């Protein structure tokens, strides 16, 4: 539409005047929030109206006279108003008081809100307070144990690290298994592989989000709930709603917190004498005599004189502090929410911290009754002081190649360089990832005609990441001040949507709502780098060097989605609910033949407790049955997956001074959407006026055309390409209850419990074998009939007590001394059978205490790095578990005899996998213990405060597990990804495959919150 036309229309709107007599007004709650969907009936007539999202209603064509208006809405007490209508319109504003049961809370459903009782899909809601109270690297970690069916694996103890979030199992293999995150209607950038794969755990784009800004998080789990996000709903959707101004007048809040971070476990590595003893034993076992060779160019005496505890060198007590100020203002026309926060989150790894500074302003302005303009705007900065960890060094080195016989410095004060020296590496490396994130949305809500609401939002999500590294001359070996590097990436994510909603109540009992919408999203990622030699520090401190640096521009990537959708809701007597959703999506990632896909969904629910025949059932306050079916999709593959590409003609690759051009990858124009058929049946029940509420869901998700980055025979000339292959089945049960066990004036006790059982199976792989997609370190595979992330290993039987040598099992289960890859078999899995959480909250007078226990049962952990930490002596240190080794005939031990030659065990190399390193990954842990004190309101009043709270919080205090490694909760970057491309095995190697992965952190903190 051109501008002139728009201006003309606007002129018409504003110049027009109303002609009919009507009763109109606003319906709000006590918090001055509009009550949406409230029914206003003129008693004794068929006239009536339903309030729009602004709370506005209008009943037209009434003759003058006296009327009784009945205002009603689920969850609120009815209000009757008597009015006399004369020759002029009447304006009437009504405040409804809440009469809420748990089933009547509002739930964000995607492009709208519904009451929980109206919802026909599987949606779980978490209040912002629950997320904000927990000191976590990023807000999504706080979802752990609180939402049934949502597995959150916190990304080790590294500051700012990402959590791996999987909703109702894993239904993808190579395409991302991450849910879609939507903040105030904006699908945001969250991929933590966006900068590739570095340091042991990648920087997490979600960490810039201030948890204190979050009003609520809704997790959409089944297709009835997430089909409205059709194309990207296959892995579930996490809707984040930020706070907005409410109430009347200004309110201010301030929060300060401080704490410490410790590892949940410390590796118990050998000291110098112990290591030397093992080395010598292996040497002699191998048939040698004399002193065993010592690595690092050291003599035996030197080695004996050095005893460096590298774990102590890389682990410290991290500190944390944070402050947060907020101001909110409610009002008739303008509401405001503002927040300013600063958080310093130091981890237990020496030199590692994440600092977030964030500001947000959310404004809502209603210049006229039928229009509202809203602005959500946040600006945050994340500063990640990074260190190497895991496979990349740091604590990972302390657990591997940094031997205790190595000194930190030589006698002359120079750094020891003969072997891995993590202290030298850390002190000579400066590494910061700085991120600026601006998330801005502008929305407009109009009610141009009765019962119709038009909403539009345009948003811009901008992310600017600078990864700065500097290595001193000590590391580079060049005789200058050092080398600096900056990797820059800019992600611009533009999105708009427009929806029109028509609501109608017919004959009081038939409530209809139709939503039609259109959405478009386009994202652009640009990557550049700058590097320079002879720089005395990071580029951030050496601008002139940056200006003169060599700059490289990497290829940018772009993607776009175009979607049309509609949702129809029907509600009969607030008792029978039906919903139909249809969304059609197009993704630029697919070729024109396969670009569009449709995602329909049908669902319904029946509130049985509203039926007359249930009225007499004692104790039962609520009973609802719901069922749904729907399709959802996944297009989370690299933007260029389908193309056969060639290097640019100006690729700067010359041979003999001549230009070159070469193919980069194979084509597959037939890649199409990965789609899932979802079924969900559930019962929701409330007892004793909802003192006890239960929810039981059964779901089944059949995924087909699974997107896989397939390993193809290298003799083709390329190692991988993308294709849709095979299928995956997920099905499971979720059960949760909330119980207010004791409710008395001075003491309250509430229990929340949830458990989810998931069954996962790859149902087909087409023509491919289990090696088609590789996970972990060649330990995890895709196996038909087994779950995604199956540990596919040669089985270890035992140590031969006579020889001390390993005995393996062949495919048939017979013992053999031959190690052969043809004997690999499915022996474990990285996904648990059951996950869940238990929260008990106690309140005694002004004191409260909350205890969260999370658990995960039935998964395996593959401790991949232990193969070089036990019995096979390489250039790695070992941990104390090695003592359970064979030393003499007759010994019955866990580990075989020490050797320095892997061939002793029949292995082809020192990285060979066996089930000896496969562990039981079940655990339960005391995730959170919070004790709080709320200052007496009377005292608060004296201090001119509206509230004050002091709390002490401990996380990860205890863990119950049989796992003998560091920490059973293992979240990490999976190896293999680079250049921001999706990782071929990201769903198979990111959880429960540990390779020197740091433990989780244990934190203790105190927090003071005031409101005034």
């Amino acid at each position, binding site marked *: *539409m051109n501008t002139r*036309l728009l201006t003309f*229309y606007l002129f*018409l*709107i504003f110049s*027009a*005047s*109303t*002609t009919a007599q009507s009763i109109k007004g606003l319906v709000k709650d006590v918090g001055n929030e509009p009550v949406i969907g409230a029914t206003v009936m003129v008693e004794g007539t068929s006239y009536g109206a339903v309030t729009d999202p602004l709370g506005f209603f209008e009943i037209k064509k009434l003759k003058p006279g006296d009327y009784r208006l009945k205002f009603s809405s689920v969850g609120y007490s009815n209000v009757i108003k008597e009015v006399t209508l004369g020759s002029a319109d009447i304006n009437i504003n009504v405040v409804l008081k809440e009469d809420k049961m748990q089933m009547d809370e509002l739930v964000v459903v995607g492009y709208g809100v519904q009451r929980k009782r109206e919802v026909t899909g599987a949606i779980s809601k978490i209040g912002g307070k629950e997320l904000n109270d927990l000191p976590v690297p990023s807000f999504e970690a706080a979802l752990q144990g609180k939402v049934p069916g949502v597995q959150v694996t916190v990304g080790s103890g590294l500051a700012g690290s990402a959590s791996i979030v999987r909703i109702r199992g894993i239904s993808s293999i190579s395409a991302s298994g991450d849910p879609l995150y939507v903040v105030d209607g904006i699908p945001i950038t969250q991929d933590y592989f966006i900068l590739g794969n570095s340091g042991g755990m990648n920087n997490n784009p979600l960490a810039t989000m201030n948890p204190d800004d979050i009003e609520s998080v809704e997790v959409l789990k089944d297709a009835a709930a997430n089909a409205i996000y059709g194309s990207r709903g296959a892995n579930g959707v996490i809707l984040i709603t930020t706070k907005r101004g409410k109430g009347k007048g200004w309110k201010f809040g301030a929060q300060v917190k401080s704490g410490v971070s410790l590892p949940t476990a410390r590796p118990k590595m050998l000291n110098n004498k112990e290591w030397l003893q093992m080395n010598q034993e292996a040497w002699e076992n191998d048939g040698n005599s*004399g002193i065993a*060779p010592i690595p690092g*160019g050291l003599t035996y005496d030197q080695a004996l004189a050095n005893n460096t505890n590298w774990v102590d060198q890389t682990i410290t007590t991290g500190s944390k502090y944070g402050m947060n100020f907020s101001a909110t203002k409610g009002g008739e026309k303008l509401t405001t929410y503002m927040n300013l926060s600063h958080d310093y989150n130091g981890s237990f790894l020496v030199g590692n911290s994440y600092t977030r500074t964030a500001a947000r302003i959310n404004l809502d302005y209603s210049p006229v009754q039928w229009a509202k303009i809203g602005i959500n705007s946040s600006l945050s900065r994340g500063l990640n002081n990074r260190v190497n960890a895991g496979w990349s060094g740091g604590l990972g080195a302390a657990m591997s190649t940094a031997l205790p016989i190595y000194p930190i410095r030589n006698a002359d004060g120079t750094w020891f360089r003969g072997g891995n020296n993590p202290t030298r590496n850390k002190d000579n490396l400066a590494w910061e990832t700085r991120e600026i994130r601006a998330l801005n949305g502008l929305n407009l809500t109009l009610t*141009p*005609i009765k019962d119709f609401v*038009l909403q*539009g939002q345009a948003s811009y999500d901008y992310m600017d990441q600078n990864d700065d590294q500097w290595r001193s001359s000590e590391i580079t070996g060049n005789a200058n001040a050092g080398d600096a590097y900056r990797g820059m990436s800019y992600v611009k994510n533009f999105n708009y949507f*427009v929806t*029109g909603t028509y609501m109608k109540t017919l004959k009081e009992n038939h409530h209809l709502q139709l939503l*039609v919408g259109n959405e*478009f999203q*386009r994202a652009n990622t640009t990557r550049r780098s700058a590097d320079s030699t002879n720089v005395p520090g990071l580029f951030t401190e050496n601008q002139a060097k940056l200006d003169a640096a060599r700059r490289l*521009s*990497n290829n940018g*990537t772009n993607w*776009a989605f175009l979607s049309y959708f509609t949702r129809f809701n029907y509600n009969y007597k607030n008792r029978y609910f039906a919903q139909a959703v249809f969304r059609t999506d197009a993704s*630029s990632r697919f070729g024109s033949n396969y670009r569009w896909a449709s995602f329909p969904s049908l669902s319904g629910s029946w509130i049985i407790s509203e039926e007359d025949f249930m009225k007499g059932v004692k104790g039962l306050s609520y009973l609802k049955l719901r069922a749904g079916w729907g399709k959802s999709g996944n297009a989370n593959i690299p*933007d*260029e997956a389908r*193309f*056969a*590409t*060639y290097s*640019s*003609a100006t690729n700067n690759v*010359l*041979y*003999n001074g001549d230009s*070159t*051009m*070469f*193919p980069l990858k194979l*084509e597959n124009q037939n890649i199409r959407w990965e789609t899932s058929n979802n079924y969900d049946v559930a019962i929701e029940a409330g007892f004793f006026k909802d003192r006890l509420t239960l929810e039981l869901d059964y779901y089944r998700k059949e995924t087909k055309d699974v997107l896989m980055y397939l390993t*193809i*025979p*290298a*003799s*083709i*000339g*390329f*190692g991988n390409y993308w294709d849709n292959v095979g299928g995956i089945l997920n099905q499971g049960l979720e059960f949760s209850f909330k119980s207010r066990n004791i409710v008395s004036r001075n003491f309250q006790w509430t229990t929340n419990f949830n458990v989810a059982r998931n069954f996962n199976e790859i149902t087909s792989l087409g023509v491919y*074998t289990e*090696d088609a997609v590789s996970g972990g370190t*060649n330990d995890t595979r895709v196996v038909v009939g087994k779950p995604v992330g199956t540990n596919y290993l040669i089985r270890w039987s035992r140590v031969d007590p006579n020889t001390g040598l390993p005995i393996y099992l062949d495919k048939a289960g017979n013992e053999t001394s031959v190690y052969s*890859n043809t004997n690999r078999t499915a022996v474990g899995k990285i996904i648990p059978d059951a996950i869940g959480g238990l929260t008990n909250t106690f309140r005694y007078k002004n004191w409260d205490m909350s205890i969260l226990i999370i658990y995960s049962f039935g998964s395996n952990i593959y401790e991949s790095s232990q193969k070089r930490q036990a019995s096979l002596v390489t*250039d790695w240190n070992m941990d104390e578990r090695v003592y359970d080794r064979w030393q003499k005939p007759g010994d019955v031990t866990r580990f075989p005899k020490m050797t320095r030659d892997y061939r002793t065990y029949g*292995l*082809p*190399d*020192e*990285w060979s996998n066996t089930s000896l390193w496969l562990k039981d990954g079940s655990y339960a842990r005391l995730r959170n213990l919070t004790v709080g004190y709320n200052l007496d309101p009377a005292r608060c009043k004296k201090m001119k405060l509206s509230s004050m709270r002091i709390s002490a919080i401990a996380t990860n205090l205890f863990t119950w597990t049989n796992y003998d490694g560091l920490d059973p909760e293992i979240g990490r970057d999976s190896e293999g990804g680079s250049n921001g491309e999706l990782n071929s095995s990201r769903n198979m190697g990111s959880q429960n495959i540990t390779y020197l992965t740091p433990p989780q952190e244990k934190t203790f903190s105190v927090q003071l919150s005031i409101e005034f």
Partner: protein
Amino acid sequence: MSVSMKKLLLISILFLSLGSCRKWLEIYPEGVQLEENAVKTQADLGLILVSCYDAMANHYNGRVQFFNELMGDNLEKPQSGFTVPIYLRTTNYFNSDVAGLYGDLYNVVFRLNYILLRMEDGTIVVDNAFKTRVTAEVKFLRAMIYFDLVRIWAQPIGTTADNSHLGVVIRKLPETTPKARGTVAENYNLILTDLGDAINNLPPSNGNYATQDAAKALLAKVYFQMNDYAKVKDVCNELIPKYTMDTTLNRFVNALNSSEKIFSFVSTGTGDNRAAAYINNYRFLNTTNPSPIRMSKSLYLEATADTLDRRSKFYVIYNQGSSAETYCISKFNYDFLSNPISYLTQLKLMRAEALAILGSDLSTAIGDVNDVIERAYGNQNNNLPTNTIAPDVILVVRKQRRLEFPMEGARVQDLKRIGVKEDPAGSGSVLIRNSKWNCPGLALQFPVNENTSVFKFNPEGGCE
């Protein structure tokens, strides 16, 4: 506002929103080209051909040679990494170094086959002269790659009488289907056919690119590996008169301008170094820092036994007398080097050995080997007497081959060739670092990505 106006507004806005341009979804990759845009003309195919040289120059920068040396007896066991199993002859199909080289070589085969297909199927219009030359260059390069693929991933030619033992997958088209391995006979047939075509159509001179002589020199090496010495003699007789011996002892410092040069890969600077793997592996900085990869004691002793041999000066010993004694070679102590692939000394020593084995024209054989010895000593004092008998000539030639071509990957293939000829039963009379020349692990295992129902992997292990 009247209801009709509002409706008009509403409908207009809805149309506005539904009118999202579908062209917004036509997004193409940046910084790269799509195939249909990239490959349109003869010149484009020419660019792809240069990229094949570029890629091969990178893969033959000492890396292909290193894999051969690891299996042989010229190197000490590497300190760590996936090259250790190559050294120990225990590779399995998860060895990422092995998979890397294998995939890289086949990637060049894909490019070469693509060029051939595009010329053959007429999708790119090419002139006859271009087609003739480029086809010949493609076939030369393809033969060179397959010759190394079959020597590294299969037991040597001659292991079975009819060479029906398995070689490598033959791909003559750019294709995406899994395939079974060809036999070694089929592999060598392809190599010989390709080289025949190349020789017939390559130009006599072609700058730094493949020439007729380059193809002939490769053909001589193929025959030599096949123990087909009569044909070695014929090809060498054709080529040797066209070149003269260079006095430089280290041919790497003069790979481009040497009078011996037949085919070399070109380096133009440190950023364009086609001997990078040689330099990264073997370069040592000073007397306290040995190179990452060290020489074997047996090479060191043989190469330094006679200090009058000026080549002995290339070798350096560290920690002499201690248990940590190590040996390095200084031929690669440079920032960058061009990379000699085929040159006269190879032909001379091949012809010398061939003639001695054939028992014909021994004086030419002795002359050839003496050219090499004379250069090494700087005088004729150590030359073979003209009456040296054939078996002694053979012994000396083989020793000279080891001393002349260290780290160039010739040694292990020499031992395999000799094994085929002199110990066909694998009785143990010809050993490669204590292992029978045909023990299974001396053919590297294929990468796991070849795991399809049609593919048969190599047996593993079985070596000392």
